């Protein structure tokens, strides 16, 4: 799987670099550099397989049931991009070693750079359109992180956010477009899409899909009117700018244009949008670039302009232009990356990037100067350099383009003007800072950059020269391989010769160079006199400001909507939820009428009626008392719980009744423990009840009655209808033969639905640990730190265990003697009862849950009568270990089934003959139930003892006690 390994390599490298010491520059650079260089060698070695139009495909099955696969696909065009990504990536890794300062946390930088390399490789290697969008968004995300690398700087924060907003929104549009395209084609496979261009272009959804996909491509490649994010992204460290924002990421947009060129191009709509955006960007970017004073901003606008040129070439609907576009992608990547690196060297050595302050640097840094000059020559389109060749092809295309007469005239003119601008800004970059009288007021005394910092620039400039001098030998085969898939398989006739004779394109080049030199001299004269510091005519047309005000407006709008439609008050939220649920249920009753069925009713028994009269009184009483009489409310609620438990018993659910009663006991103890920390609330002293309170209560009461009646009606309707056909007969009939137990409920819990139970006990353990963790930082309210007032009623010198029952030496000596002795005697009995429940659980009512709760209750009883200190001095309970052992036991039982080739948590029943006992059948589910038991014991004890310990802890008293927090309570 060469492609999958290639894609994985940078991500692995990213993780590795993230683990290295954060300031170990050399080691990090070596690690990242070797990973990139290895990837580069790997890619280049694949060239013979894609050279003649071959395609390498790899499919990794992901979710086969949904038809989702990871498809990797390498053809010549993707190969060319992969080479750019990996080679320039390796050079940038080397360069960044010297550019970044020793104080910077460079591990983060290298980790992000490698992650970006992986994401970008993912984009170019994707053979599936949706997968491509995923990697596309990943590049936006990593770009955000890299622009914001110096996250303490405000410009970095803003630039990163803007880039993410624009490219992320574009990515969203792209996803929409790709989904539409997949709908038209009937598949998300790139190969299928590439083969069905005619069908796509004839489809009524084509314009929508096209516009959405172009939104993605144009935002990513910073095309007008989305160009404004790129100059802002220059807040990133220069290696990042060289890599992402000139050579690779911003090329993803034009990559997509080229990738889908065979599918989408060839229509009027394509021509007008793509070439229109490209031409505007070409001209506008070059124009603004001339007036910039920051080296990196000059390069940023020039990048925008060159990307516009590439976009324009793809928009012309001619395969020769597409070849030129592919060629210019390569050329621009090499010279622009080297220019960014050179700008970084100048910045690094002089401490400034302001063109107005930099002069005559050629004396102090001759080598860098020479390299920058050659690279700016390539950018300007000087003959014998690579930029000249692709620009010449571009001129030729504009000359021989045939369309509407107005366009035919306009295109060469615009191309020439943009080329003149390009010469001007190239001169400002190359000539302005290196020649003239040396500047004297620089922040740092300039000197030549370190040897290895120049090496990446040297290699890139060398390739500019080689391609420029001997194009056919050096770049010919790669260009042919790269351009062939773009134009759909058959290459048009083109020549890479340097000299085509004295033809119109050559004249355009000459005009551009001459005009550019003159323009530069003119501009310099004016600028030296303090004029033309900013680009005239476009000051008002500030896309960035428009973007920011639009964003601000959206934020304000959403805030207003939230204020109108949302609330932070829980009561309102609960009311809305319940009211909406009730309303929806009523609406549903219109479709499925709420009618009583005709199932035979059970005759009412007086005892049951009486039982529930008590139950209902308890429930309503608890509701009434919960505000001022908490103890009574807890007691009444216990009554309601008890009646519920008896109801389970009544209607043939012994397991439920057992569980309900033990849980009821534990819950009551829990609530009683919590009572101590709640504020006192006395009837009659709170603020008077207002009419508003009454109205709110009336409203709530109505809703409660409505919802209660609805619930009653619904359950009556369900109870009187015949039982639905469910999967229950399956469980009933299989429980004994397959689950090996007669208690169907227990067999379901530990066998059929054991995975659910495993999840449940995990939740139980997690809750207990959360309770423990929350209580460790517990700060009780100030007025409840004092001892309770019953304990304070005794004089200090009285020796009695009534004062501090929890900390008394031994409760069994004082007034608690009788209960303490009984509770201690009951402990072994309780454990025996628990063991009984646990062991018989598979066949009779019982099981791990009940047994665990019984043991927990027995232990809590000891706590209550003897006090925590006495108990913990004598028994080490370690509830956390109980939880751990229980979870492990459950998981291991499940995995045991896996080990012998059955699905997770399959039960096996072993039959053993024991002496005296006789035949014993031992299902493996017993061990699982034992795990449940242990977790329940541990979790319950941990929760309740953590709460109980709060009264023993010496709580720090707040220095200043706030105003009495008792009750200004209301409804």
């Amino acid at each position, binding site marked *: 799987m060469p492609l999958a390994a290639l894609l994985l390599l940078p991500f692995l490298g990213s993780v590795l670099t993230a683990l290295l010491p954060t300031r170990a520059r050399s080691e990090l650079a070596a690690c990242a550099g070797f990973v990139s260089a290895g990837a580069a060698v790997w890619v280049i070695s694949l060239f013979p397989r894609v050279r003649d139009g071959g395609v390498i495909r790899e499919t990794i099955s992901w979710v086969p049931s949904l038809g989702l696969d990871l498809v990797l696909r390498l053809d010549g065009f993707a190969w060319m991009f992969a080479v750019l990504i990996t080679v320039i990536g390796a050079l940038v890794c080397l360069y960044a070693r010297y550019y970044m300062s020793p104080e910077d946390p460079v591990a983060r930088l290298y980790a992000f750079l490698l992650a970006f390399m992986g994401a970008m490789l993912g984009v170019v290697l994707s053979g599936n359109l949706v997968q491509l969008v995923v990697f596309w968004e990943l590049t936006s995300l990593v770009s955000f992180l890299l622009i914001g690398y110096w996250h303490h700087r405000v410009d970095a924060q803003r630039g990163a956010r803007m880039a993410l907003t624009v490219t992320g929104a574009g990515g969203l549009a792209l996803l929409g477009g790709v989904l539409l395209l997949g709908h038209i084609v009937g598949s998300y496979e790139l190969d299928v899409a590439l083969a069905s261009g005619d069908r796509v272009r004839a489809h009524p959804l084509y314009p929508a899909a096209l516009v959405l996909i172009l939104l993605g491509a144009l935002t990513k490649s910073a095309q007008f009117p989305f160009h404004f994010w790129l100059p802002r992204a220059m807040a990133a460290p220069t290696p990042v700018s060289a890599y992402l924002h000139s050579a690779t990421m911003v090329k993803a947009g034009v990559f997509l244009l080229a990738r889908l060129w065979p599918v989408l191009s060839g229509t009027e709509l394509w021509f007008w949008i793509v070439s229109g955006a490209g031409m505007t960007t070409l001209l506008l970017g070059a124009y603004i670039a001339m007036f910039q004073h920051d080296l990196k901003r000059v390069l940023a606008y020039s990048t925008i302009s060159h990307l516009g040129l590439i976009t324009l070439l793809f928009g012309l609907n001619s395969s020769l232009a597409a070849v030129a576009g592919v060629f210019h992608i390569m050329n621009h990547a090499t010279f622009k990356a080297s220019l960014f690196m050179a700008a970084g060297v100048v910045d690094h050595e002089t401490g400034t990037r302001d063109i107005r302050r930099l002069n005559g640097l050629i004396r102090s840094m001759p080598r860098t100067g020479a390299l920058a000059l050659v690279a700016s020559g390539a950018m300007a389109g000087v003959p014998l350099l690579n930029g000249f060749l692709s620009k010449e092809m571009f001129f030729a295309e504009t000359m021989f383009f045939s369309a509407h007469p107005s366009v035919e005239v306009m295109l060469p003119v615009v191309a020439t003007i943009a080329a003149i601008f390009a010469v001007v800004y190239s001169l400002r970059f190359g000539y302005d800072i290196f020649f003239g009288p040396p500047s004297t007021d620089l922040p740092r005394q300039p000197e030549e950059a370190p040897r290895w910092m120049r090496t990446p620039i040297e290699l890139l400039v060398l390739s500019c020269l080689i391609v420029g001098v001997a194009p056919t030998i050096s770049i010919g085969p790669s260009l042919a391989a790269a351009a062939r898939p773009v134009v759909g398989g058959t290459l048009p006739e083109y020549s890479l010769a340097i000299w085509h004779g004295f033809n119109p394109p050559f004249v355009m080049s000459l005009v551009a160079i001459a005009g550019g030199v003159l323009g530069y001299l003119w501009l310099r004269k004016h600028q030296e006199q303090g004029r033309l510091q900013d680009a005239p005519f476009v000051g008002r047309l500030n896309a960035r400001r428009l973007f920011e005000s639009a964003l601000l407006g959206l934020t304000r709008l959403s805030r207003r909507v939230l204020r109108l439609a949302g609330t932070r*008050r829980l*009561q309102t939220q*609960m009311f809305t939820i*319940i009211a909406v649920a009730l309303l929806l249920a009523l609406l549903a009753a219109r479709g499925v009428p709420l009618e009583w069925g005709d*199932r035979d*009713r059970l005759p*009412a028994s007086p005892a*049951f*009626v009486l039982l529930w009269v008590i139950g209902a009184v308890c*429930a309503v009483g608890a*509701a009434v008392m*919960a*505000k001022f009489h908490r103890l009574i409310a807890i007691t009444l609620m216990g009554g*309601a719980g008890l009646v519920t438990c008896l109801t389970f018993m009544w209607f*043939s*659910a012994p397991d*439920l009744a057992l569980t309900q009663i033990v849980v009821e006991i*534990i819950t009551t103890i*829990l609530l009683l423990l919590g009572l101590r*920390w*709640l*504020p006192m*609330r006395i009837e009659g002293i709170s603020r008077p009840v207002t009419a508003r309170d009454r109205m709110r209560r009336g409203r709530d009461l109505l809703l*409660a009655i409505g*919802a*209660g009646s*609805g*619930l009653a009606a*619904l*359950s009556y309707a*369900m*109870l009187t209808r015949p039982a639905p056909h*469910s*999967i229950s007969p399956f*469980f*009933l*009939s299989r429980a*004994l033969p397959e689950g090996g137990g*007669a*208690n*169907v*409920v227990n067999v*379901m*819990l530990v066998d059929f*639905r054991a995975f659910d139970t495993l999840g449940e006990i995990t939740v139980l353990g997690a*809750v*207990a640990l*959360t309770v423990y963790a*929350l*209580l460790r930082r*517990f*700060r*009780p*309210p100030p007025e409840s730190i004092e001892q309770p007032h019953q304990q304070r009623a005794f004089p200090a010198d009285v020796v009695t265990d009534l004062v501090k029952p929890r900390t008394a030496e031994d409760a069994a000596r004082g007034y608690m003697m009788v209960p303490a002795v009984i509770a201690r005697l009951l402990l072994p009995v309780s454990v025996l009862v628990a063991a009984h429940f646990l062991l018989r659980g598979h066949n009779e009512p019982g099981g791990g*849950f009940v047994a665990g709760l019984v043991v927990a209750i027995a232990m809590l009883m000891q706590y209550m009568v003897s006090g925590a200190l006495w108990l913990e001095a004598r028994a080490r309970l370690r509830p956390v270990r109980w939880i751990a052992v229980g979870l492990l036991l459950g998981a291991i039982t499940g995995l045991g089934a896996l080990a012998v080739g059955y699905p997770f948590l399959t039960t096996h029943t072993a039959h053993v003959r024991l002496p005296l006992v006789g035949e014993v059948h031992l299902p493996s589910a017993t061990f699982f139930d034992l795990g449940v038991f242990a977790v329940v014991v541990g979790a319950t004890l941990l*929760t309740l003892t953590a*709460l109980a310990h709060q009264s023993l802890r010496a709580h720090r008293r707040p220095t200043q006690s*706030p105003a009495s*927090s008792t009750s*200004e309570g209301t409804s």
Partner: protein
Amino acid sequence: MEALLALVIGVLGGSGIWLVLRPRTFQVIMGLTLLSYAVNLFIFSMGSIFIDKPPLVRPGVPADLQHYTDPMPQSLVLTAIVIGFATTALFLVVLLASRGFSGTDHVDGTREEP
């Protein structure tokens, strides 16, 4: 019997909902407990009610829904009872912590009524 059971589910649910809508945290925790009784009984009653037919398979009796009550709602409710205890415990501790931090036992953590 059915009417009575339906009625008590309604009473328990209504009392629970009333309490859940109250402003004090203790009232809400009591309300959630009452509501969980109602919901457990409701789910339990989905299998329709039988007397003296516990889902314990006995030899010689055919294992079908004519001779035993429905075991599925029972096992669902058993899980729900235990999880209900866990959430009550968690909620209790959260309300105590909130009381300690904010100085009030109002559900919104603010003393003033807006």
